[in-house]
């Protein structure tokens, strides 16, 4: 309570100074722009979600979700991604206090968990394709591979980005531009986890529920 009151008092005093303060610092502008990008990415995913929800019964005589999906594997993927989101948060804490070892450690664990997620998903896809459930089989499977594959592609891009960021920390150190990119990366990684929450609920839980 006290904190909230203090913040509001400060705001009232500071509001008059906003126009004199000039443009916001680059860190805020960059992160806000990236936030807008993430929201438009989520809007793109919502179109894929809508396509999946519309086509989920269009199996064209092929296998449906209840026959294909393995909930144990989905639970393991969820655990990997959630834990990697947590370690990514710890990494950004270490980075903002310029602790090199903590940042590397957080990045390595985040990368390992993200890679484990991706490996599980690729194994699941390979398994389905081996059993004849290819994207060409039915509209349901096309929508499934587009939706889940697009998320997997985002995770793969995130892993590459994380590697590049660690190279930048190693070479350039924690200068302001690297800090901004690390902030954008952690926003990206947390947003991917938010999309996965919707994904495992709609695809793996609702699809398998009797």
């Amino acid at each position, binding site marked *: 309570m*006290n*904190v909230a009151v*203090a*913040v*509001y008092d*400060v*705001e009232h*005093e*500071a509001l008059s*100074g*906003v126009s004199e*303060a000039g443009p*916001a610092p680059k*860190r*805020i502008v*960059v*992160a*806000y722009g*990236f*936030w*807008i990008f993430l*929201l*438009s990415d*989520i*809007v793109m995913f*919502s*179109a894929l979600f*809508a*396509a999946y*929800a*519309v086509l989920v019964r269009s199996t064209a005589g092929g296998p449906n979700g209840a026959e294909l999906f393995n*909930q144990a594997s989905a*639970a393991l993927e*969820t*655990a990997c991604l*959630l*834990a990697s*989101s*947590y370690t990514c*948060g*710890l990494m*950004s*804490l270490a980075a903002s206090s310029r602790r090199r070892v903590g940042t590397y450690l957080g990045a390595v664990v985040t990368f390992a968990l993200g890679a484990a997620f991706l490996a599980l998903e690729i194994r699941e896809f390979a398994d389905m394709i081996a059993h004849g459930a290819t994207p060409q089989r039915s509209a349901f499977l096309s929508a499934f591979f587009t939706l889940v594959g697009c998320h997997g592609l985002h995770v793969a891009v995130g892993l590459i980005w994380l590697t590049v960021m660690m190279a930048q920390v190693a070479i350039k150190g924690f200068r302001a531009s690297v800090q901004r990119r690390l*902030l954008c990366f*952690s*926003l990206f990684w*947390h*947003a991917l*986890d*938010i999309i996965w*929450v*919707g994904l*495992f*609920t*709609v695809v793996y*839980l*609702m699809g*398998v*529920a*009797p």
Partner: protein
Amino acid sequence: MTATRYDRAPGDRSTPAELQAETPPGVLVYTIGLFLAVVLTATSFWAANTSLLWAPGVPLGLAVLAIAQMGVHLVFFLHITTGPDNTNNVLALAFGVLIVTLVVAGSLWIMANLNDSMMPPAELMNLHMQH
């Protein structure tokens, strides 16, 4: 004081030095978030597989759990707050949620209507099957 004049960057929780002491440490925030997210995820997986619950209500319950978990991620991992320095972030998020709702609900609504209107009578379906 200069820090409070601007909006806070999304994902940032660096506060002015005088407030630093009163905010909980970052690790604690992330750990609370992880704990809540694990509880909600475990509940969703349990609800999808149990026979104790009324089956037609399960999808609605799963949707509520998913939205709650997204809220947990936004608050504890992305540090979106209701504070005045977060207004722009929240407004952008609200617009995103509006578009997502329109796209998903609108598509489902239109396609359900279309399926109802386009469904041919049963005897016509049988004719189709024979050819």
